[in-house]
């Protein structure tokens, strides 16, 4: 079954935004909020709400942190120390879960990652960089907005190479001629070399193996077609 549950700690205005967007994408949202008023607000918006403190491990287990269907846990509290504490507690209970925590400075970023967050988001940084790009690179920003935030049918897709796929064992170089007319291959994430994303345009030739993830840009339908091609077994 596809993972489709999202747990959000603290119903801040950022949390409300994230919940709204993910809810629209058919994720099942669970809000954890201690504050009565905010909890009520979340309920009114139609989300599942649990009004408990996550400072106790028992409660964290209680909200179903070990549920296999959980796609991600968002830690969006207002207080930095509480966020750190909860991030660490959740990571301690579930080693696999994807934790996304809010941070408000570069220094917070580091400690948050150390506490076990998979990714940190800093609204101030994201907002400021957006302003910077609006001034400095407006063209590129609008192109990226188009692609990222689905204002058009151009999308980014991740395609995992399955065993026996026609791309299994092929060199990145050889893909240059593949379907150039329809989709753009941005690059590849190697399963073994971990986190480093290899951009197609770097010129590094890389052998594609089973489990690697291709990142592709294209129109929705073309991407579906392309995925079919990749998945087809010779």
């Amino acid at each position, binding site marked *: 079954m596809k993972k489709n549950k999202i747990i959000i700690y603290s119903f801040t205005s950022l949390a409300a935004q994230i919940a709204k967007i993910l809810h629209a994408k058919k994720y099942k949202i669970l809000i954890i909020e201690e504050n009565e008023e905010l909890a009520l607000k979340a309920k009114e918006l139609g989300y599942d709400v649990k009004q408990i403190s996550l400072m106790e491990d028992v409660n964290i287990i209680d909200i179903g942190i070990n549920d296999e269907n959980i796609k991600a846990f968002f830690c969006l509290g207002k207080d930095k120390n509480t966020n750190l504490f909860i991030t660490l507690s959740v990571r301690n209970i579930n080693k696999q879960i994807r934790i996304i925590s809010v941070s408000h400075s570069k220094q917070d970023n580091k400690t948050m990652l150390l506490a076990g967050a998979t990714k940190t988001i800093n609204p101030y940084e994201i907002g*400021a960089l957006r302003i910077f790009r609006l001034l400095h690179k407006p063209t*590129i920003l609008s192109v990226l907005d188009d692609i990222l935030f689905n204002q058009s049918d151009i999308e980014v897709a991740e395609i995992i190479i399955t065993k026996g796929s026609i791309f299994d064992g092929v060199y990145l170089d050889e893909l240059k001629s593949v379907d*150039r007319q329809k*989709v753009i291959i941005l690059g590849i*994430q190697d399963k073994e070399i971990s986190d480093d994303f290899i951009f197609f*345009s770097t010129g590094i030739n890389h052998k594609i193996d089973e489990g690697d993830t291709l990142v592709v840009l294209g129109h929705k339908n073309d991407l579906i077609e392309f995925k079919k091609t990749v998945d087809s077994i010779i």
Partner: protein
Amino acid sequence: MIKELILRFAYFLEGSDLYYNIKHFFYLFLEDTRSVRKKYFDFMMIFLVLSTVGILIYEVNHKPESWLDQYETFAIIVFILEWLARLWVVNHSHKIIIKDFEKAQLINQPYDIKQSLKTILKEKLAFIFSPMSIIDLLAILPYYRPLRILRILMLFRLFKLLRYANSVKQFSDVFVEKRFEFFTLTIMFLMSITFGSAIIFIYEGAGSNPNITNFFDAIYWSIITISTVGFGDITPVTIEGRVATIFLVITGLSVIAFFTSIVTTALGEKLIALKEEKVIGEANALKDFVLICGYGRMGEVLAKEFKKIKQKFIVIDLDEDQFLHTNSQNILSIKGDASDSDFLAHIGINKGASSIIALTDNDAVNLSIVLTARSLNPNINIIARANDKKIKKKLFLAGANEVVAANEITGLVAAEYIGQPIAFNAIDDILLDNEGALLGEIEVFENSFYKNHTLEHIEFENFNLTLIGVIEAETKKFIFNPNQEEYVLNEHDILIVIGFEAAIKSFRIEILSHRPKALEDKSEEV
């Protein structure tokens, strides 16, 4: 007849660009405190003043030398010319004539030129009798031989320095601004002096103290005592005299304390104003700078990015702590209210600023900043931060070109990350402009070889670039992954590519060139 000539001449001047340019040129030298030329001019004048005063001191016990006299003559000529130029630029006389004449025409009355001349004379006289002008004249006067005796007046030239050193002028303003306090102080001082000198004169002036023979001696003694200098050349000999001394010393201490506190607080206040004036001066000299209103966490990130690409910017914040914080980071900043139109105008929103960013954490304040900025400058690029998404519409309505709601955009980013983390990280890398690959925009210019050619002619792989799409010049629309065999490049089309910085750079050169290298290589092969 003469009237007509004068009128004609006035209209001639009004219509002459040359006249205005010349007058403006002199104005910049003499009066515009923000012009660089004035700075150089001031330095020269300071040197002239100091050197001529130096000569005066030198000649006290040396024989006068002829070349020093010539130098003095030169300096005087410069001083006279300067004074005349100031007299000239102080107002526009011909405008007064024209204004009066047109007014007379409007109400069908005969034009009386005497009235205009009177107004002109009045304005010029007001300048001539202004304190600085009098100082200027006193500095020139001693050169006139029969008045040689007044050589000491040459020291007045030192006062001329006030004119050239802006900060000195600011300090002298302190006395004007605190005149009430100084007035009180003077009254107190005079009272004590009169009181003290009267007592000493009554009790010791009659012969009991040989050092006090007249009332002036008594005043001299009181001043020396009240100022706590106390030379000791005159000392009281009677009990009454000693009591008066005790009284004077005690009041003296309080007068000095009062005086010091007035001057220090006033100077302290002035110092802040001076510094702000300096920043505003710098701001006005800048071109194409960005105003950041509100320096919180977002402001800090933005400032860092601006520094990276050497974009000039000025921070405005009302909060004392944030203001000090920017100072410690060596950021050009001014403490002030960005929603105050006078303040924004003063900073130069109509001069060098290309964009203004309302970045405070208060939406109402941001709205007010946007409105003020838009009312002052209809063309400036305004970006506003919306803390509440609902306020976005209002900010646009107020005149913002772009509105950024940090929470909304962060929500979108987070949602994107949840869906496809790897793809997201790849895009994130591009967005953050880290050392990795970046998105580049390359415009096709008029002389480019590739103009009117299909995309096929560009070998993106050879440049290690991936073409994402083209922004069509005509429609400004983004065409994703256009068909390379069919799409013909037009002038001002923008190619969007992904690749490393160096690759993008070399590709840009290729696109700009009239005869591309890649094709040359090919033709050689053939």
